[in-house]
């Protein structure tokens, strides 16, 4: 009777994708964009979207060709034991490090914006603790939870966006091209901060009902993410203008402080729970992926058991940077700069290897 073990449908996969990548628009990812390109940030996103079509398409192609394999097995299969190990190890390192940075940022948001008096350590422990609980349960439950909360989260987001449109000023959108077309192109090719995470979704490809689900979920999510990102970057721009937005580290949280909902002049606590749920699910997914990769690297079958030690490790490493508002922000920018080529070219290399080996013709 146990007919649903480990199987994700399109809805759940889509929900995971939207929540894990979509939450990025609530941290410091958007303000990093504004720094270089000014008010042209939303155009940058569209360009980024267009550029990342190629790697995402190639990756999806390879993954759908290998019916029974997920990305780990594909990499091992194509590159052999040794190079495969190195590639997977790099992915694991990059993923875990970005989880550390990301969770440090989120804990910092909670501490500086909402719970000023509570120690960072405890907030961080709860954040990762809840995520670890979800990751330990398994991907299908992360997916189910993501789907169940998705509607609520989206309603909350759109309430924020729509009020921001009404309360912002359209003049702030100009100059449309911001700091110029050159900057926009430069930024959009060296920043995979949004679309890089699509790579991780290939790792859970075998947990899906079929590869068709994977294809559908990826493209639906790709379009939805782009629309939401463009809309929210425009909303931030209309609320704060591109000059002051660079000073703001977390534009989403400033935005929910800025907007008014009727008689509620301070509505940020109303949106806090939704954002928190999304963050818990996001880190549950990242922890799960990190454990999955670790398990694949060192041949540990029941990799769910790696989640608690990994979670502890992430908390302690994440606590190291002092004043995360500045240091982590800077580290994240550096990190994205270095990893972007990796995300852009890895799918290309995988696809080319598969092509030369003649695996794609089957």
């Amino acid at each position, binding site marked *: 009777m146990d007919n649903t073990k480990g199987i994700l449908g399109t809805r759940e996969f889509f929900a995971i994708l939207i929540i894990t990548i979509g939450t990025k628009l609530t941290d410091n990812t958007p303000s990093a964009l504004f720094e270089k390109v000014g008010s042209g940030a939303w155009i940058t996103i569209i360009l980024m979207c267009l550029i990342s079509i190629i790697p995402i398409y190639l990756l999806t192609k390879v993954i759908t060709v290998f019916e029974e394999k997920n990305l780990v097995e594909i990499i091992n299969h194509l590159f052999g034991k040794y190079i495969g190990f190195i590639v997977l190890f790099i992915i694991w390192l990059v993923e875990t490090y970005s989880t550390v940075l990301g969770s440090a940022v989120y804990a910092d948001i909670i501490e500086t914006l909402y719970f000023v008096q509570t120690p960072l350590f405890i907030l961080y422990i709860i954040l990762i603790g*809840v995520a670890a609980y979800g990751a330990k349960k398994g991907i299908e439950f992360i997916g189910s939870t993501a789907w169940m909360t998705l509607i609520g989260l989206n309603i909350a987001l759109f309430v924020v966006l729509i009020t921001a449109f009404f309360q912002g000023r359209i003049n702030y959108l100009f100059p449309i091209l911001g700091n110029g077309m050159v900057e926009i192109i430069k930024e959009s090719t060296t920043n995979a901060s949004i679309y890089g995470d699509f790579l991780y979704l290939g790792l859970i490809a075998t947990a899906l009902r079929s590869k068709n689900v994977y294809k559908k979920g990826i493209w639906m999510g790709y379009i939805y993410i782009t629309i939401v990102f463009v809309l929210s970057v425009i909303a931030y721009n209309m609320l704060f203008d591109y000059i002051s937005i660079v000073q703001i580290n977390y534009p989403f949280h400033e935005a929910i402080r800025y907007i008014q909902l009727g008689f509620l002049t301070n509505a940020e606590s109303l949106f806090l*729970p939704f954002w928190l749920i999304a963050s818990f699910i996001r880190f549950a997914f990242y922890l799960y992926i990190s454990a999955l990769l670790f398990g694949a690297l060192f041949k540990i079958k029941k990799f769910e058991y790696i989640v608690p030690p990994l979670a502890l490790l992430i908390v302690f490493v994440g606590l190291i940077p002092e004043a995360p508002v500045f240091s982590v922000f800077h580290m994240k920018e550096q990190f994205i700069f270095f990893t972007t080529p990796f995300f852009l070219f890895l799918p290309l290399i995988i696809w080319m290897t598969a092509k030369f080996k003649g695996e794609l013709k089957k």
Partner: protein
Amino acid sequence: MEKHKIKKFINKLITEEHESFEKAASEDELDKSKRIGTNLEITLDLFKDFYTVPNNSDVIIRNIEIAGLNKQAAILYISSISDIKVIEEFIIQPLLFNKEETKDIEIILSSPKIQKYQIIEDILKQINNGNTALFVDEEPNAFIINTSNFQGRGVEKAENEVVVKGPKESFNEEAITNISLIRKKIRDEKLMVESTTISKRAKNELYLLYINDVANDDLLNNIRKKLNSLDVDSIQNLSVLEEYIEDHKKSIFPTILYTERPDRAAEFIEDGFIVLIMDNSPDALILPATFWSFFHNAEDHYLRFLYGNFIRFLRLLALFITLFIAAIYIAITNFHVEMIPADLLLAISSTREIVPFPALVEMLMLEIAFELIREGGLRVPKPIGPTIGIVGALILGQAAVQANLVSPLVVIIVALGGLSSFAIGDTNLNYAVRIMRFPFVISAGFFGLYGITALFTIVLFYMTSIKSFGVPYFAPMTPNDSTSKETIFRRLLNNEIYRPGYLKPKDIEKKAGE
């Protein structure tokens, strides 16, 4: 590993052995599996031994001489659970007044149902069920005549799952009546009533009800296996059985649905679920159960489409209010004060001014008091019930406010949460929600909305991972199932054409034929 060994060793030292007791029980078993002999005297002595007659006052043995055949015979029955009139009219009279000499016993008796048994154990079981055994000299069989008549109450109105519109009758303590109530609703020759004995000593009978060409075989076998693996002396009723067959015994969420309404049970049977019925239980167990089956109510479908969905919406609201209102009050007053409009904030703080406790303590105090009143009110003898209600609600609430123990706003919030909890009809879910309120309040006291959300996410992760007999707890919402969309809101009956796909029924469409 080492620890485990030491534990085992210590356990061995501590536990006493009960070998002698076990032996006695097994010897008893041996005796029962024999056949009865042809000698009436010996057979009767044997049964007298089993029932310790004459000390056992309601076990009656009556010797008869069958007229015409001129044979010695005896009937054995338990007077408190048999119908004496039937025994007299259909057994004793025909035997005494028989005139023909060559007739079979079965032909002489005029009772509607007669069975023959030889094994002692079977005969004992039949007698214990209220039937009468007739032993005849020089006859290797015992004749079992159906005379059972257990005392019980009639079919009454449902008390816990009240509806305004729709059938009102409810199950009672007799399994036969309950089955007939369901058969009255499903006149289908494929409706199976399978019976099994689930306990070793008390021999409690359990009835599995399902529709043969709808219910999934794997699910059925799974349940049968679970029932057969039970090794207990006695299971009094379904409420006890529930715990024996549950997958998550210590979980806060129920995984088996318990209903006292035959119409609800019938509805579930028709959808491919399996229903358990037992004597002594004024209810039925429905399995597998999802979160939605606890959330739904029989009336949702009896009311018109819009009204039915309206009460579902109210119930959802009640669920959230019960769970969160106290916690949110604590979180907002302690952590997120800026959220409240200034006037309201001043009003709250002026009422809180005179209260000497922190808000969390105040809230917990009143919540616990409310639970006490509720539990006390439930157990209080009927005649003084209303009085206690008045004392509890009026005097306690009013006096506590006047004594500056609690602020009026907290009374309002606890009362609202308490009232809302009554809108959740299912007893099990009701308890789950009421208990969960406390962790939410405490987490709100420590971390405000952050604590509430963290706990809520954990609960969601946990709930999605629960399975009831292999069915995920939130099916069909997630994992996604396109067949049945019966979750928060109901659909038009015309559109509810599929049985729930998560049960893998043999017949997925509710429509007959094409």
